[in-house]
């Protein structure tokens, strides 16, 4: 992730893990705007269970980095009141599966107050959620709840996939006057990359990014599966298949124009995410692209997703999570090459 070369200096480009880049994004937001406050469980002295907020309480004090009671509705609901007062709260939900007690405050209050008040009240609240599986944890710690929020009018939903985006997108999310669900791929927290701390974000928070150009298949994903998708493109290339990987970055709104532009070239679409398949982001993307690109499609859109089961115990997560081979199989099917799942498509 090289920054913009013109603005780069040796001091501003660092090799950081994704979690550290989020930490730097929070630090910058706290020092740039005194109305930014962080709220969450264990985010103070402990620095968060993933250490994402490490050192921030010591630097900014307990009324800027607030260790809250163990109450998710309370965290989000008090953030609403702080937003009424002119603050820009950044809430941390400790794990994806813990967000549900705060669900009402998010979907009925945070999401709707701008519309309910005809735009008089703004809810510039960022809700950070470490999400997804692959860390061998116990239940309620590996979920992908993004579709619930993408389905709710008034929320922006984003997911970062690399340290530079994590830094830039977080700062954009905090600066946004709309509420943003910020999904952090927890199994990539330790992934390193170059981060330019001074770089002006090169694209809007709602735009997708084409990571590799390709002419045969458009592979759409976001968050934790982006590195996997890159591996798929490399493996497919060895097989003579040219895959264009799109990192959606924004899940609400989806940058459909970017996907449409790609599918008009490739004629084939594969969408992959960790979340369950039914009524997931993949379904929405497949449906919209079918509507907008029907005459360009050479094959039916393929989805490679988690299964419609609860996230399984850690011993099974390799089965549940889309991996290189499952996605490559879908690419093959899109290319008209037969494999074990080909017959299921026509079987009802």
């Amino acid at each position, binding site marked *: 992730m090289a920054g913009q070369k013109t603005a780069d200096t040796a001091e501003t480009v660092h090799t950081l893990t994704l979690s550290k880049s989020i930490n730097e994004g929070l630090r910058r937001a706290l020092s740039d705007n005194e109305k930014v*406050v962080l709220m969450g469980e264990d985010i103070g002295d402990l620095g968060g269970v993933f250490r994402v907020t490490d050192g921030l309480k010591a630097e900014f004090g307990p*009324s800027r980095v607030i260790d*809250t*009671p163990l*109450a998710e*509705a*309370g965290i*989000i*609901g*008090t*953030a*609403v*009141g*702080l*937003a*009424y*007062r*002119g*603050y820009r*709260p950044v809430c941390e939900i400790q794990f994806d599966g813990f967000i549900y*007690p705060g669900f*009402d*405050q998010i979907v*009925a*209050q945070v999401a*709707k*107050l*701008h*519309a*309910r*008040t*005809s*735009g*008089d*009240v*703004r809810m*510039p609240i960022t809700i950070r959620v470490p999400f997804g599986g692959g860390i061998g944890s116990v239940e309620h710690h590996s979920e992908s709840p993004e579709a619930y929020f993408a389905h709710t*009018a*008034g929320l*922006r939903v984003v997911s970062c996939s690399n340290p530079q985006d994590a830094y830039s997108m977080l700062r954009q999310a905090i600066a*946004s*006057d*709309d509420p943003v669900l910020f999904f952090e791929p927890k199994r990539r927290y330790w992934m390193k990359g170059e981060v330019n701390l001074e770089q002006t974000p090169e694209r809007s928070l*709602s735009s997708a990014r084409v990571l590799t150009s390709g002419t045969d298949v458009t592979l759409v994903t976001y968050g934790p599966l982006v590195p996997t998708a890159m591996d798929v493109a490399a493996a497919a290339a060895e097989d003579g298949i040219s895959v264009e990987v799109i990192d959606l970055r924004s899940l*609400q*709104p*989806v*940058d*459909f*124009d970017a996907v449409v532009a790609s599918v008009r070239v490739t004629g084939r679409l594969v969408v992959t995410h960790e979340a369950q398949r039914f009524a997931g982001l993949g379904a929405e993307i497949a449906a919209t692209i079918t509507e907008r690109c029907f005459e360009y499609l050479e094959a039916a859109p393929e989805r490679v997703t988690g299964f419609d089961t609860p996230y399984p115990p850690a011993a099974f997560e390799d089965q549940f999570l889309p991996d290189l081979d499952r996605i490559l199989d879908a690419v093959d099917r899109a290319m008209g090459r037969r494999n074990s799942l080909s017959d299921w498509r026509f079987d009802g």
Partner: protein
Amino acid sequence: MLLTHSGEYVQLLTPRGERVDAPGFDPWVADIGSAELRSLYEDMLISRRLDTEATALQRQGEIGLWPPLLGQEAAQVGSAHALRQSDFVFGSYRENAVAYCRGVDLTTMISVWRGNANAGWNPYDISMAAPAIIIGAQSLHAVGYAMGCNFDRSDDISIAYFGDGATSQGDVNEAMVFAASFSAPVIFFCQNNHYAISEPVGVQTTKPIADRAPGFGIPSIRVDGNDVLAVFAATAIAADRARSGNGPTYIEAVTYRMGPHTTSDDPTRYRPEAELEEWRAKDPLDRVKRYLINAGALDDAQLQEIDDHADEVAKDLRAAIRALPEPDPLSFFDTVFAEPNAHLARQRSQHAAYLAAFDGGER
């Protein structure tokens, strides 16, 4: 002494209109002379008139729904008058008398019940949040706002209005945890009007509601909610505690909803007539009127003047409905997000094209 004992309540004005002493509370109403009490009476009467008018407007099909506050005038007017305009109010959908006291524009208030708007007034115009329909959700907002007042080192405070039903909600209980932990300058104002739609308060609790707060570390006051002086005193005490850095206070105003939950329900199915009679005798307006008349501080001419003012407000409410313009059919797309959203803009354009086809388009 602030904390009242279980089951007791503070009363300064009996249903017969007699002023009784309440040590600890009297000093807080020492400034309320006849003129001020007349003004409280006037606001209560106007609130009642607004209620009657709005109920009639619903029956005439001018508005879709109305949640009457009949019987709760003292609880709302008394508490609202103990606040500063710079304090911030977080209410449910029944705090229309509070909104009136804070100077709400009647046109925007009625637009909600006409179905033209979701929340009506601009919260920053009257320092009162959008009404909350999800029960108890606003209590957390009030606490967050109060935390912000603390962070700002301001002596502004906030108040959360909710009903007895809301005390069962997790949000209200979490709000008390946050308020106590952060010593937030917030007033929890529970109007125990005895019914959550049809469910009597006994379904929510078997103890006085005010007893719950001390367990959270929050002192509470149980007050006769039909006694505007007692409500004013309790709220003034709570506001002063909050402003001087002593954190939250919980007030249970014991009152009674004389009307239905909304114009849609039928209280005769769940509420005994004898109970209604019992509460009719405790009417919040009658006792103030009797007291003032007995004190020689309210004569027929003044009563007429107050009535005329109430008529005027009711007339304004009716006129406000007629003044409401038909909303732009596409405007509901426009304020979903503060920032442009390409996906929604596309959907709006598609619907605009569909609508345009009706105006001489080919359909």
